[in-house]
Each structure stands twice: as C-alpha cells, then as structure tokens.
C-alpha cells in the first residue's frame, strides 16, 4: 500500500505538485494522467525520492519513505521510463541484472532471474542476453527496460510513460504483457501517461492531475460517468466517452439469452470490440463463446447501446 499525504513540491515560487493526497491499494494499477506540466512525473519521482518533496509524507506499507537512504529505497522499487534508458555499453543480460548486482545477489541467482524474465518477455536468453541494446528493435528494448525494472522482484513498480515511444501495435502488445505480468507477480504499479485511452485500459484507478493539483482519483467508470471538472471531461473526450465506457466491460458480462448467426466472439473480448464488430457487419446480434468454445448466448446492438449510456 502506498499512502501519499499532503505532498507538495515547490521550485522557488512555482508550485509543481500542490498538496496531493491519495492511497494506492496493494496489487493494483494506479494511472496518473494529465497534460504536460501537470506535475504527474514529479509526483511519481517523489515516491522513490528522485525528487524530494517540499512538504508532506509518502508511506510505503506504513513506513515513511525517508526512513532509508534514497539509493537503498530506489533499489527496492522498480523504475521504468520512456525511451527505456538502457545502458548502451552493457549487454541485455547485464542491463537486466543491474539492481540484483547492486543488491549483491549471488551469481547463480542473478543468472536464473535474468533468464526467467527474458523468457517471460519472449526473448531467448541465449540469443538476446549477450546483445547490446542498439542491436534490438524498439519493442524489444522497451521489454528489456521493464524486465530490468522488475529484476529484483520489487513490490512497487513506477513507470513514466513507458510505452510513449512505441508504435500503436507494439504498444497494445506491451500493455497486455504488463497486465499479465502484474497479475502474475502481484506488483503494485503506478503508471504516468498523458493518454486517457491507456489510463482507462490499464488502470484499476485513475488519478487526474491539472496544474499540480489532484483533480479526481477514482475508478475508470466513475471518471467517465462523473468527471469532477470540465478539465477531466475534456481529458476524457466527450465524443469518446461511451466507447471508453464499453471498453471497460467484457462481452461475457453483456450476454443475453438467445442465438445469433455468424462467427462467435470470445467472452473475454471487450464490449467495445463487440459493438464495433456489430456496427461494421451491420448485424443486430452476435453469438458469444466461452474460453472452452461453448456458446454462451449472444450480444445485441441494443443491449450494448444501453450499456454505453451514462450510468445513473
């Protein structure tokens, strides 16, 4: 659990982060969204004390984050940034081993962890381990960057626009990978982005920041349904709201009894994808199948449209 209490950061006369308080539950993903200059990156960097706050306290699992030296604190927290920040003079394996080496792990343990993470990220340790970062594609570099951040099995992972430099297709894949790994390790993730789409897709809760202030901190559906201010409403994008709302739900939750013609859609797919498929093919209903391939029922255009309406 991360408790942020009354955190403020001032540079001379400019207040970059203004009295922000929020609690991030363990094993969840909190996404901080805002325009550039909203203070979201500064807030993130105060959690691992890359930036020291002017006022306020940040507690990690109940302990003040100033109770240990900054560099020791940072070794216990994962950190991944835009443009990955890999060390160009070190091999992929050496890059991933950075924090374990700092922590003084044994050679075999480091090797085993590096191999585990690389395999997890679909990079063959034998093939990619000895390579240098410039010999990898952008997507591979990004994966190595996240693997490096996770190397010392941190409970908390801070990510500053980690997918910002990726093209849309690789970005979607990277987001799915991160969600899968978060489920597997139960890591608490705080992710900074300016992309509302990403925030709604990734976040258990979304924190919206504007001019240093925390404007709203709530579940995605709540942010979409009841934006706290006109700023949040603009950020959400009025024309995108219904579709973003649908993208939060799974098809299996919108299933109605009945049958329909044509190719079945998996129950895991998002309701937004189902609606898109219905609109594109001009059909009123689609059959739905479970993970085992058994039919579950159908989704209808009318049913989905009701779900896309503003919740009461």
């Amino acid at each position, binding site marked *: 659990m991360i408790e942020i209490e009354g955190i403020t950061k001032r540079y001379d006369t400019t207040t970059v982060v203004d009295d922000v308080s929020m609690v991030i539950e363990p094993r969840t993903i909190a996404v901080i969204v805002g325009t550039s200059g909203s203070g979201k990156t500064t807030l993130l960097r105060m959690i*691992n004390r*890359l930036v020291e706050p002017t006022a306020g306290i940040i507690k990690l699992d109940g302990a003040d984050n100033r109770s240990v030296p900054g*560099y*020791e*604190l*940072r*070794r*216990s927290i994962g*950190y991944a*940034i*835009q*443009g*990955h*920040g*890999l*060390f*160009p*003079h070190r091999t992929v394996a050496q890059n991933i081993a*950075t*924090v374990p080496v*700092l922590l003084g792990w044994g050679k075999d343990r480091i090797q085993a962890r590096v191999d585990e993470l690389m395999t997890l990220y679909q990079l063959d340790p034998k093939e990619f381990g000895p390579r*240098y*970062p*410039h010999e990898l594609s*952008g997507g591979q570099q990004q994966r190595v*960057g996240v693997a*490096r*951040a996770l190397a010392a099995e941190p409970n908390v992972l*801070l990510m500053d626009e980690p997918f910002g430099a990726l093209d849309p297709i690789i970005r979607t894949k990277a987001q799915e990978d991160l969600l899968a790994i978060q489920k597997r390790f139960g890591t608490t993730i705080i992710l900074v982005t300016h992309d509302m789409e990403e925030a709604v897709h990734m976040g258990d809760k979304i924190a919206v920041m504007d001019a240093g202030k925390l404007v709203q901190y709530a579940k995605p559906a709540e942010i979409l349904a009841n934006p706290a201010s006109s700023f949040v409403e603009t950020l959400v994008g009025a024309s995108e709201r219904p579709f973003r709302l649908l993208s939060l739900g799974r098809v299996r939750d919108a299933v109605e009894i009945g049958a329909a013609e044509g190719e079945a859609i998996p129950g895991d797919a998002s309701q937004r994808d189902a609606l898109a498929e219905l609109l594109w093919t001009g059909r009123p209903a689609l059959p739905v199948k479970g993970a085992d391939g058994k039919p579950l029922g159908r989704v209808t255009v009318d049913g989905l449209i009701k779900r896309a309406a503003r919740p009461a």
Partner: protein
Amino acid sequence: MPDGPTGEGVNIRFDKLGVVIAAIAAYAAFLAPFATFRANRIVPGQARSILEALPATAGPLLMAIVIVAALIALFRTPLMLRLAASVVALAALALLVGVAGTFLTPAGNTFARVSPASGFWILVFAFTLLLADVLTRLSLSPRDRVAVLVAAAVAIGLLLVSGAWNDLSILKEYANRADSFWAEGSKHVTLALGSLLAAVVVGLPLGILCHRVQRLRAGVLNVLNIIQTIPSIALFGLLIAPLGWVATHVPGAAALGIRGIGTAPAFVALFLYSLLPVVANTVVGLAGVPRAANDAARGMGMTDRQRLFGVEFPLAFPVILTGIRIVLVQNIGLATIAALIGGGGFGVFVFQGVGQTAMDLVLLGAVPTVALAFAAAIILDAVIEMTATKRRVETA
C-alpha cells in the same frame, strides 16, 4: 584486368589520387636531386640525381621501379597490386638511399656527408600517400593497423641495425652522439608522457567537477583557453620567477629538481597546455551521456559514485580518450621546445643543429619526434576505435 574485349579499344581509367601521386613521383625522379653531397657537414652541398647517386645497375633499377609503381598508381588497378607497388617502391627507396651514401662517400673520407635530398623525400611522400590510400580503402581493423605500424617499425629498425644507412649523414651525426641521443630521447618521452599523466590525474577530476557544478564550467574552461593561447616561450619565461621562488623557499623542492629553468618549467608548461583538451573532452564526454541512461541509473538506486564509474565514465570514455590522444601528439611535438630552457629532449639536437647550420643534426632531432608522434596517433586511434565499437550509443 579490363572487363573484356570490346572491340572499341582498351577501356583505360585513371585513378584520381593516382594522377597526383604519379605527377609528384615524376617530378621527384626526373627533376629533383636524390641525394646531396657535401665535403664536410656545414658547407653547401652538391645535388645528385638518381642516376648520378647510385652505382651503374642500381640507378636504372630504381628509376624503373619508380616509373612502374607510378604507372600502377596512375591507372585504376587492383588494390593488392597498388599495395605491392607502394611497399616495393618504399623498400627500394629505403635500401638504395643507403647505397647512395656508401657510393658517394669517397673511401676513407670521414668528413664528407651524404644526405637524402628533396627528390628522395618527395618520392617517399608520394608512395607513402599511395600506401596510406590503399590501407584506408582496405578498411583495416584497429588491430591490423597497429600490426602494420609494428611491421614498419621493425623493418626500419632492422635497416638501422644492419648498418645499411650508416654512410648517411643523419646516422653519422648519430654515431657522434649515440649516448646523448638515447638520454635525450628518454627525457623527451618522459616529459611528454609525464606531463600527460599529470594532466590526466588533475584534468579528469576537474572535468568531472566542471560537469557536476555548472557555475565552475565556464570559468575553468576560459582560464584553460587563455593558457592555451600563451606562446610556449612566453610561458617558460613566466614560469621562471615562481618556480625559482619555490626552489629557494620550499624545503626539498630544489632536491626534487625544481628550478626556474630546466626540466621543471618545461614539465609545468606541457602540463598546463595538456589540461584544456583533457578537461574539455571530459566535460563534453560526460555531457553526451544519454539523459535517459543517467535517469535510469539514479532511479534504480545507483549511488553517485556507482553512476559515475558504472555509467557516465564508460560512456564518456571514447571522447576522453580522444582528448588524451590530442594531448599526447601535441606534447611529443611541444617537448622539442623544452631544449630552449635546458629541459632536454630531442629539441637539443634541433637547436644545436640550427645553431651550427647543420641540417643533419636538426633532422636527428626532428625525425624521431615526428615518428613518435605518428606512432602515438595511430596506436591511440586504434584504441579509441576498439573502445568505441562496443559502446556505440544508438542515435534513435
């Protein structure tokens, strides 16, 4: 080989650089003197062409070799043929200039001096240019370049030891000064390397400090820039008073050899000149470390020192090494001036030679200096390339 018979005649194509090389070689072989003969070491000399300077068979042979090698250079020919031509021409020149020395010196005459003349030097230049061009086009690995350098050094060493050049004036000057040559040589190298070492020991931390403390940077670099613009002789003069004061007032300083003139001011001057390249390249190198890598290093919990030695320094290393290369080559040349204030080094022969109008003595000081600087440049270039290849920073 031509691409094939075309019926329209042979397809002859010129090599651009080869045209220049052939023109230079033709001028040197036919118009310039190959060797100079003098009755003693300070009277004006008489020019001798290739055919006059060499015995009946050797003269025409050298002419033939030069003409064939120049023709190979002139046309577009295979690289290996050009390589062979340049090596054969240079080897023939090196061997036969020694033969000319023996041939032109009257038997039993120890006063007569025979030295290579402009034609010889120009031919050496022309075929070295050809060799350098071939080696560049072969794009040798750093290791191979050093190997070529070692091979050339060994070949020259063998020629020196074999006595093939013993009748040339520069080696006669050497024979008279063999002991002091090596003493001054080691002093020269000590001055150049010692001041470099001192500059690295002081300049690296200073560069790191300038990188970390923004406000220091402009001040330090400006002061070093101003030092760089002080002429060396003026700097020696400026150092006499303070070093003289140190020698008389600091106990033990005089015992260490610190005096107003001599090695100490030469060392200090070379050290001061060396600081700017070392400090400036350290600052530039550290500034070139990718921001993201630095941020990640901090974010993952490296201490400042771990970040400096683990990330910043290795990434800045090739740039810093470039600065050290500049300093080393510059110092080997500049150390010649040290002789002016009794600091020793190869400059001793240069200034003695100038004083006696004995050009051979000047060459005895100048040739090893140039050779040392050249070798240092090649070796350090190779080292820089070797360290840079693995540390290449992506441009994305």
